[in-house]
């Protein structure tokens, strides 16, 4: 069984919720370990390996010293996959970048301990802003089905297909009542589907964890949100919860 691809999982700044999704695959996990050889996965095992065919990186890069570790993993990996919103786009961790003054951020979060050396921080970067990324698995957290689909595609040697249409399409086929018709607002028209429209299906507007689709009509989105009585500040806040648009990093 030595021909099975060697797979490893690594985490940076994140809640590890995406790895937890994988650990929680239950029935499918047996099929999964038939398919690949998991050589490093801190959530479920303690072994280490020198090199990997596929490395899954969870989390974003939020301090200078993590860059070295990430570059080292990149060197030792065939395919490198950004796993989840934090790795793929920077995710919620990028909210702090909007504050500008990171010393103040540390004071607000850590109080009197703010200047202890291990609490060092810099402007959050997505994995792809440090090393080259071969594939992204979107979502906060990731969709397990999509993760399995990706792993299968890697094992078959084909490129995984991920949706390039917006969440609205999945709401329609799931027969969700459009939240705009219930007086709520939703970023579904510009955000990448693939989540099964799980949030709108449960009555919560899409917040954009899977990032925007290619050629998203953001002007129309702004107009529609404004027509639903959102102020410019509220619209900006919506777009910034997950970093839907590239920001200028210091």
């Amino acid at each position: 069984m030595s021909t099975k691809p060697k797979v490893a999982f690594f985490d940076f700044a994140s809640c590890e919720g995406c790895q937890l999704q994988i650990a929680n695959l239950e029935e499918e996990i047996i099929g999964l370990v038939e398919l690949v050889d998991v050589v490093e996965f801190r959530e479920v095992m303690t072994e280490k390996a020198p090199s990997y065919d596929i490395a899954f990186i969870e989390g974003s890069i939020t301090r200078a010293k993590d860059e070295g570790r990430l570059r080292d993993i990149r060197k030792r990996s065939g395919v490198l996959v950004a796993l989840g919103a934090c790795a793929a786009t920077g995710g919620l961790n990028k909210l702090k970048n909007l504050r500008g003054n990171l010393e103040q951020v540390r004071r607000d979060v850590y109080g009197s301990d703010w200047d202890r050396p291990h609490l060092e921080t810099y402007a959050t970067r997505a994995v792809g802003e440090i090393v080259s990324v071969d594939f992204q698995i979107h979502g906060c957290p990731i969709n397990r089905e999509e993760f399995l689909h990706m792993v299968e595609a890697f094992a078959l040697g084909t490129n995984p297909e991920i949706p390039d249409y917006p969440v609205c399409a999945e709401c329609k086929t799931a027969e969700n009542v459009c939240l705009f018709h219930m007086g709520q607002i939703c970023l579904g028209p510009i955000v990448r589907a693939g989540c099964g429209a799980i949030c709108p299906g449960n009555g919560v507007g899409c917040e954009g964890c899977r990032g925007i689709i290619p050629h998203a009509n953001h002007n129309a989105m702004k107009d529609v949100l404004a027509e639903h009585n959102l102020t410019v500040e509220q619209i900006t806040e919506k777009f910034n919860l997950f970093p839907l648009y590239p920001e200028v990093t210091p």
Partner: protein
Amino acid sequence: MEYKTIGKGAFRDFVSSLIAGDREINGVVRKGKAFVYDTLADASDLCLDYDETLLPPKKYFLPVKETLLTFKTGDPSSYHESVEAKPRIIIGIHPWDLAAIALLDKAFSTGQSDVNYLSRRNQSLLIGIYPTRPFKHRFSESMITDEHYQAADLMLVDMEDDTYAIEVISDKGRALIQKSAAVTADEHAIQSLKRQKQRVQDEAHLSMPRKDLPEFLQKQQQSKVIDRRAERCFSCGSCVLVCPTCYCFHVEEEVDLSLRAGRRTRTWDGCMMEGFASAAGGHNFRETPANRLRHRVLRKGKYLPDHFHLPGCVGCGRCAKACVAGIASPLEILNEMNRSIYLPEVGTLQKFENMTDKDRFFEFTLEGRDLDHQPGQFVELSIPGIGEAPFSISSSPTKQGSFEMLIRNVGKVTEAVHRLEPGDQVGIRGPFGSHFAVERYQGKDLLFIAGGLGLAPLRSAINYVMDKREDYGRVTILSGARDRSQRLFPEEVKRWSRAPHTLVLETLDQGDEAWSGQTGVITTLIPMVADRITPSDTKAFVVGPPVMYRFVIRELEALGFDDKDILVSLERRMECGVGKCGHCQIDDIYVCQEGPVFTYDSIRESMEAL
């Protein structure tokens, strides 16, 4: 036609007996404040008094996703067909959804038969119902007639007296309803049934007969209505995914986690989504939202009716409701395309400033769109109760959000325009006419010659060039006014003169002691700039009072200009703006259509032009 009646309680009992049988029973049920088709577990869940379901009943014949083939990985001989079908009865289908099923039946049986669809369809029995509630987006009366929904086996009519009347349409329907407590309807019931089924009327209607649509749309392929609406399109596919007549799908291969076996599936897809027409190699054959919206509208209104001789759109209005951007309604699109050419849209005066004693400079906006004009074009402006008149546009297309016009108070419409205050509304039609095609003259030298008010239309072209200054060679602007009080846009003239490789010369017919510039008619400026002009590499734009043209053109020809490099704009009485009324005609040319901008060589031989 055979008619029956049945009490609502007896009908519910009948549905219960069907549920207890071996067929799957589907019907309309509530989902929050909305309605959907679902499998009935209890007859009391059935809700036949509904406005519209989120998805049409199509999903039972063409599931959102289904397996077409199964296979073993790497073994082409293992492909095996897969058809999942079971007998079912669907209760509560509106007439337009039945008409849509009739179209799908034809689409899946014409040419090669699609067994997956047809085997499900052939095992189904459809019980329709005439609408009981209005739905503001619906326009089915314009799209379908009785003969289009013969796909039904039975049609229910809610008689509003706790009974349903039933039209028995097929033998299958007759056999089924015989098992219920329904009795033959008497003459009185038949008469009131006919009234009752017409009870709910559409609020909106198509402004032309449906049968005219294919020919009409053939001529509307370039319609700006599509482009304008597509600007707001999210390419989300909602309009096509909720459509009862859309049946396009995407085929893909899925492999089990074992990698040893898998299946080929088909999933609903739609032409409004960006990737629909993309192919390997990175080509997308319908790249823009406008390309896609055009295809959707033509497919519904022309291609499907041409192929199948049935309505391609049944007017259910689901797409209009589902579209968050509010652009999808076929009714609105078609009626907007079919709007009277004489119908203005609303423009709002934003601000004005006085330019001379008689000239005022106005800035207008349209609701929901840019004017989208070209330099040199004009609009027709209406004041209700006074009338309509043509005005050239003074602002550059590079200025987005509003447009500007310089209007001299000389007649009844202009007098009324001068009385407008910011916030007042006017009617606007246009833009109309040919334009100064400056976008085609990149790299050329440009010579603008304006006499008096002629600077108003030329300003549109000049500001366009100034906004893209690096795209052009030397620019020379000659402008003449009667006296110092009649100079137009003095601040901008100053700004133009400071642009690189740009010379601006002004002259006044009558100077005064405060005027240090040139005096004399405009032709006196031409020799002064002759040394910076290379006629073979220069386009000249000439606009001014009628008397000016002959003299200016003579000078330009003397410099060596070819007549095709001299562009003029002619003023005529353009009453309709759309090439019909005849007032603007020069010989056999309609100035509002082929003009107002002409190359001099195209009108040189015309008796009436200059």
